[in-house]
């Protein structure tokens, strides 16, 4: 762990007990907005979690979002952090915290900060990260944003902390897409990686399935049945502009982007059975990838773009295979069981997540592509559609919970799971988007 020397330490700001009490009283007011759509429930325990204290940000009790709580939930959901109680602490980014006090609470790190409403309605958010053990300032940042981006700022703070303390890039400021079915309507949502702040990109009386983020994080490809057959669209989420990518005779489905964003792999039935094609992202004539006798579907590109993993029943039962991105001979990847579907390759190329039927249950499995070793990582029985976070450390998937479809995240070993608990219908078809441009 290194200290960023370019950031001077703050002037000493002794803590005043009286001020602390006043602040604690304010902080006890309920501050979570009623529009919170999801709830995070960490159900597992990891062995090497970093203890971190998130002091309430000065001014956050009066702000629309509790920044420190969002940051803490993000870090805990990653499985690599354990939150230490910091209620009542009266600190901000210019305070010099009493390290002995935080060591006593067994915190290794401490985040302090503030949020201030500016005259023009925007918010100024500042924070600082401390290494409590070494009493070192690890740096801080400031942001000026509109109210609608306060959660985004909290996720960026979590990303900063995560990267400083683990050495790996965080995924908290990324977005996920998913589909809900409620009251006979289907909606495609774009939400923060914690499931909050969901905004509807598309609402339709007909089914929507298989959303897939473009590598630039601004467009979604998906299958919509709005014309009463499955058709593949590409949808710019900021503008709502849509264009048809595959609307050929028969069914058009299972879009997957190449990592360079220039083409999509899709499943078409224009020549009879379900077969894989690649098609230019701007449209045009599809190119058939292979000729097989049975079903080929659910293509997905590897992170380097050289390989396409897919599902085929060419051997009699659905199994996962791989083939060169421009075609060639397919090679079988899964050998255990007789129903293996929905492959997702981690961006670093090391892992394959997929759904395997085991004794009538559909369970999320993770395979180490280097060794072929695999594990079922859930205790649910109707898992669907895994998708990797861009840092390859978490998987989002759909599962049945108390008779409803819900979204879950899990670490690759399955030890830490969090439910993105939704309201208002069945939640399904998650796809984890790429890193956002800073």
């Amino acid at each position, binding site marked *: 762990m290194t200290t*960023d020397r370019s*950031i*001077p330490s703050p*002037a000493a700001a002794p803590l005043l007990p009286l001020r602390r009490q006043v602040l604690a009283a304010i902080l006890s007011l309920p501050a979570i907005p009623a529009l919170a759509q999801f709830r995070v429930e960490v159900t597992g325990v990891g062995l090497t979690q970093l203890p971190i204290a998130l002091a309430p940000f000065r001014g956050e009790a009066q702000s629309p979002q509790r920044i420190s709580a969002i940051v803490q939930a993000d870090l805990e959901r990653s499985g690599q952090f354990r939150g230490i109680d910091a209620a009542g602490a009266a600190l901000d980014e*210019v305070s010099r915290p009493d390290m002995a006090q935080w060591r006593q609470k067994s915190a290794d790190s401490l985040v302090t900060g503030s949020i201030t409403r500016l005259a*023009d*309605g*925007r918010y100024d958010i*500042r924070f600082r990260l401390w290494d409590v053990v070494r009493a070192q300032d690890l*740096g*801080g*940042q*400031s*942001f*000026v*944003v*509109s*109210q*609608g*981006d306060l959660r985004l*700022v909290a996720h*960026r703070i979590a990303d*900063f902390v995560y990267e400083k303390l683990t050495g790996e890039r965080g995924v908290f400021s990324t*977005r996920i897409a998913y589909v809900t079915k409620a009251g006979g309507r289907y909606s495609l949502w774009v939400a923060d990686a914690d499931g909050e702040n969901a*905004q*509807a*990109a598309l*609402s339709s*009386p*007909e*089914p929507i*399935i*298989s959303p897939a983020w473009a590598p630039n994080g*601004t467009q979604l490809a998906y299958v919509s*049945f*709005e*014309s*009463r*057959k*499955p058709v593949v669209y590409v949808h710019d989420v*900021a*503008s*709502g502009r*849509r264009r048809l990518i595959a609307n050929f005779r*028969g*069914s058009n*489905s*299972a879009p997957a982007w190449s990592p360079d964003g220039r083409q999509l792999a899709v*499943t078409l*039935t224009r020549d*009879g*059975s*379900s077969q894989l094609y690649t098609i230019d992202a701007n449209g045009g004539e599809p190119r058939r990838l292979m000729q097989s006798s049975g079903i080929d*579907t*659910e293509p997905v590109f590897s992170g380097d773009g050289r390989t396409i993993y897919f599902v085929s029943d060419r051997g009699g039962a659905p199994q996962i295979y791989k083939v060169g991105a421009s075609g060639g001979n397919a090679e079988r990847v899964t050998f255990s069981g007789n129903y293996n*579907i*929905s492959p997702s390759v981690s961006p670093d190329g090391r892992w394959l997540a997929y759904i395997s039927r085991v004794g009538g249950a559909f369970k999320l499995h993770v395979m180490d592509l280097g060794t072929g070793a695999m594990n079922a990582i859930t205790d649910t029985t109707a898992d669907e*559609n895994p998708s990797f976070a861009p840092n390859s450390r978490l998987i989002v998937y759909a599962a049945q919970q108390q008779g409803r479809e819900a979204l879950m995240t899990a670490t690759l070993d399955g030890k830490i799971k969090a439910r993105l608990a939704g309201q208002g219908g069945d939640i*399904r078809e998650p796809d984890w988007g790429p890193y956002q441009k*800073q």
Partner: protein
Amino acid sequence: MKHLKRLSIALTVAALMAGCSTGVKLDDQAPVEDRSAATNAGANTGNTAQSGVAGVNLGQSDRDGGGPVGVSRTIYFDFDSYAIKSEYQSVLDAHARFIKAAPGRKVMLEGHTDDRGGREYNLALGQKRAEAVRRSLGLLGVSDGQMEAISYGKEKPAVQGGSEDARAQNRRVELSYR
């Protein structure tokens, strides 16, 4: 052929994608000047969030009817099967005669599965059922131009629930005239 009615309404103002929430290093000696870069980076004022999404709202599409009078428009399949049972031969005969009687008629063959398994794989399995019906109608002289085989997979069950009875009613191909 009926056209899909689509109401595309942009529900929110297009978001400005300028990178206005980019983090700026804290520097206590010049905090205000330091974040001026962020302040000036774009017209991000008021409630225009950079993470904004413009929603699109689709209306109800047209429903259909049609087909030969008094003839079933649904063909059911056994579990894990894509073969048309002999009991449906007379149903297919009647549909074939009806389609051939008017060259302008077009039928969609919509394959469906029960609720078990993945959505995309079920889409492919439903397609297999629809293709089986397409081939049968083809053998009865229906031209390819008058029919299209598509699949809904498990997305549009006829009956809700995971009972064996419900599943049997969901493994089907519906003949839909448009």
